[in-house]
């Protein structure tokens, strides 16, 4: 489903040139739960952004569902993105002016889903995340854990093939963190591919494979937790 070869990402600013990704060759199959780990600044987020087509690599090839997307324009990427990918971020990234319901609905709006179907899907996703009772609240009125559950609901509402999560538990206490991880694990069981960046070894356990990065390179890939079982 996902395959990269010789993926490279350079950040050039006025003073320095940072090689955030260096010759990344990975392959991820449908249905996998992959965790990406490594110290701060090693390129985890950059990799996730490239895999999520939020950014183009500087060099190398990236096959997503057999499309070579490394040189796609932003609008081509946007098109692939909205039909196949869901995102969860450490800082939740909910839109403050929108209610819970409206935040979850957003991807469906851009996919031009008909109103009746939209309502059904939004209610289903919120139900799955147990957020239905908060549907008319604004993000600021929710706790961190609740906000992240809304973010997950938004990521899954369009039934994407892949969910990309960048430290989804980073801003949560352990109870809330556990809960969000449980949600992701459930989604994976239902067949959704999950790629997650995390610092916490105990959450890496939820995955079936851990990719370790250091200074923009893959240093090890091993089966873990769910994978070993």
């Amino acid at each position: 489903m996902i395959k990269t070869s010789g993926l490279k990402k350079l950040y050039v600013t006025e003073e320095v040139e940072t090689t955030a990704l260096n010759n990344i060759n990975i392959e991820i199959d449908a249905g996998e739960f992959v965790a990406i780990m490594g110290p701060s600044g090693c390129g985890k987020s950059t990799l996730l952004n490239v895999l999520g087509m939020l950014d183009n690599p500087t060099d190398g090839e990236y096959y997503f569902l057999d499309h070579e997307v490394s040189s796609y324009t932003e609008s081509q990427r946007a098109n692939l993105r909205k039909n196949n990918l869901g995102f969860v971020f450490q800082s939740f990234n909910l839109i403050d002016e929108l209610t819970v319901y409206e935040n979850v609905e957003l991807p469906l709006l851009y996919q031009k889903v008909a109103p009746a179907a939209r309502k059904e899907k939004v209610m289903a996703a919120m139900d799955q995340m147990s957020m239905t009772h908060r549907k008319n609240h604004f993000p600021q009125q929710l706790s961190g854990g609740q906000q992240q559950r809304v973010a997950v609901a938004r990521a899954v509402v369009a039934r994407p093939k892949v969910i990309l999560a960048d430290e989804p538990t980073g801003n949560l206490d352990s109870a809330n963190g556990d809960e969000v991880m449980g949600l992701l694990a459930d989604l994976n069981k239902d067949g959704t591919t999950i790629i997650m960046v995390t610092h916490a070894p105990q959450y890496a356990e939820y995955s079936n494979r851990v990719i370790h990065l250091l200074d923009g390179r893959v240093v090890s890939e091993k089966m873990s937790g769910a994978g070993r079982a």
Partner: protein
Amino acid sequence: MLKHYLISTLRRLGRAKGFTAINIIGMSVGLTGSVLALLLVRYELSFDKYHERLDRIHLVVNRSVSASGKVDHQPWLPLPLGPELLATSTEIVRSARLTLGEVIVHGGSGSFEEDILFGEPYLFEMLSFAVIAGDPVAALAQPDGLVMTRQSAMKHFGTVDLIGQPVSLTTEAGRREFRVLGVVENPPAQSTLQFQMVLPLQAWLTYTTRALNWNASNTHILVETAGPVGKFDLTDTFLAILLKNRSDRAPVTDQGEIPTGRRYWNLSLLPFVEAHLSPQYASGLLQPVDPQNLMILAGFAAILLIIAIFNFMLLALGRLQSRFKEVGVRRVVGANGADLTAMFMGEVLLTALFALGISFLILELTLPSFNKLLGRDLALTTATDLGFWASLLLLVGILVLAAGLYPARKLASLQPVQALHGIDPSNPEKRSIQLGVILQISLTIIILVAALVINKQMKFIQEQPLGFNESQVVLYKIATEMDELPLWSQRLKEVLSRDSGVQSVAKVSYSVNRGWNRLGWRDNAGKPWRALVKDVDEDYLKTMEIALLSGRDLAAQDGEEAMLVNEAFVEAFGLDEPIGYVLDGFAGDADRDPTIIGVFSDFHFFSLRSEVAPMILWKNPAEYYQYLLARIAADDVSGTLQRLGDSWKRAAPGIPLNYNFLDEDIQALYIQEQKLQAVTRGAAILALTLSAMGLLGMATIEISRRTKEIGIRKVLGASVPEIMGLLSRRMVVSSLLANIIAWPVAWIVMQKWLGSFAYRIELGPGILLGAASLALLVSLLTLGTLAMRAATANPVDSLRYE
């Protein structure tokens, strides 16, 4: 989707209340100005459009050129030209001559003096005035016919059912019976020709003596051509007529060249539809507007709108960063550039529509006073034509695009990762923001310069010594038939003089600025000269308090052989010894050779737009004095006026009491400028307020961005003034740089405006510096309060503000 955008936009606007208010207020002021300008321009452009035969109706006009090359535009023409045109040209099928006069109407409810139009029958066939009763064409063909409008019929008789009604009128020729043979609707407000009553041209006193006289120009001539405008070249016809009847004014010599050293006429047709916008042909009958003033007004509206656009754009750019997260999220869930552009433009559109709604509200409230100021009846509700609404739509479209497109493009071009991380990829943005601020301040400075110049010029004019004392002088009109003027002017002068509150009374032919004749004589070499002449009696200089410089004043026993001249006269004709100089064959009468007996100091009798011309005062040989000038004592003016009114009514019950103050008359000369002054002052205040609001918004953004920096600097020991300086530096630099753009533009425009005044202020650096400092002061005050708050805040608070 639409609903989603609408809801999220409304919530966002509601959150940033301050910025939303600045944007909506700014846009609504800009739009109000623009809609006003649009209404006014549309109004002025649609004069006379209702005449069915409009494409064939023209005014004959004269663009005469003097010996010195000066061009004079005149709609006044000799009476015989009308019939002569009909006789000579097959292309002119009908004509109507028109002139103005005054009559006293002895109606059902008393005697009233009224302005009156004298006209020929075809007037009512060529132009489409709605007929209520009777036949106005036939009425003007009768020697005693009379056409009344609905308004005058109602005023004098309380009914329009008047056909056959005898009406007693006192014209200059005496009191006579006329019969109402036509009643028409009032001329529409957008009609160049305005009248209350129309009498046959033959009823005009001087008609018979002047019907064949090519030397006096005292009529307007309206003609109808055989086909629409543009098909006719009547140059040859006009030339032939002039060669036959006034060869001295024909613009060719035998060699076919335009002669030099003498006056000649250029007759031509002015399409009637253009009359309203041809200020050069202003006359008592035609009261055109100056398109230049309309343009100045439209310019103010445009500047206000542009300032509002700048405000919006700058605030949007300044707050771009606060939208990054939202844009990033929308990108992540699948929005493309077009979606984001549409969203942002929708936001601008919504703001503009709110503003439009508010500006309609403002218009409802301000239109009455604006109408009063301009003497118009503009209304939104009468603007039912598509053109107006289409232009309005276009205007809103331009506003939305101009204000929103650039920030929208900026937002939409953000890459998702950059947006999510709040990275501003376009640091040069700061430069375009500063450029915007500079442009905006320079627009404000331009308006300020305009307002200061107009204000100063008006003050200058009002303080300029006129050469006479215009205060406490009352002008009484003697409305009676011409033959009785010698008797009544003398009798009423005595009546007024007898009052203890009256210091002196003079008889004059007209008020100060009206009633000037242009009469000529020949010098020793036989060369013809001309000067302005006014008929006055021996108390004129005394009553007006005009200084006598040499010689003696007119005396009671003087007749038409004595005259006074002004300094300009002495200078223009190079008289070394003016006293005793004889003007040979004065006023075309070979036997009349008056002598100059005194020289008085120059005084301004026209608007200060023009220079003092050579002038002559003498006694009217026929004693046709239509006015009395009374200088009254400053104490108890109203009591005096009351007594004078009572004495007048007792002495002359048949002559309506009709007076006004001379200084009001003189103010009326500057009515256009005063309107312009009021409008400019308003525009300047609005411009200054709008740009101050914009700067306030910019400063808020700047300071909130630098809160942390300010905190750190204070911890490190920066003083309050140092921080204020830091925060104000950029604003000061922008305000100063703005002058580089504003000064040349303002200087050129205002120099051109001042050019139309013969007596004018110097446009020196003072005004430019004044406007610059005012703009700087306002921006500093705006910024200062915010900067002060930021600078004096507890550093811990500002550091925590992360």
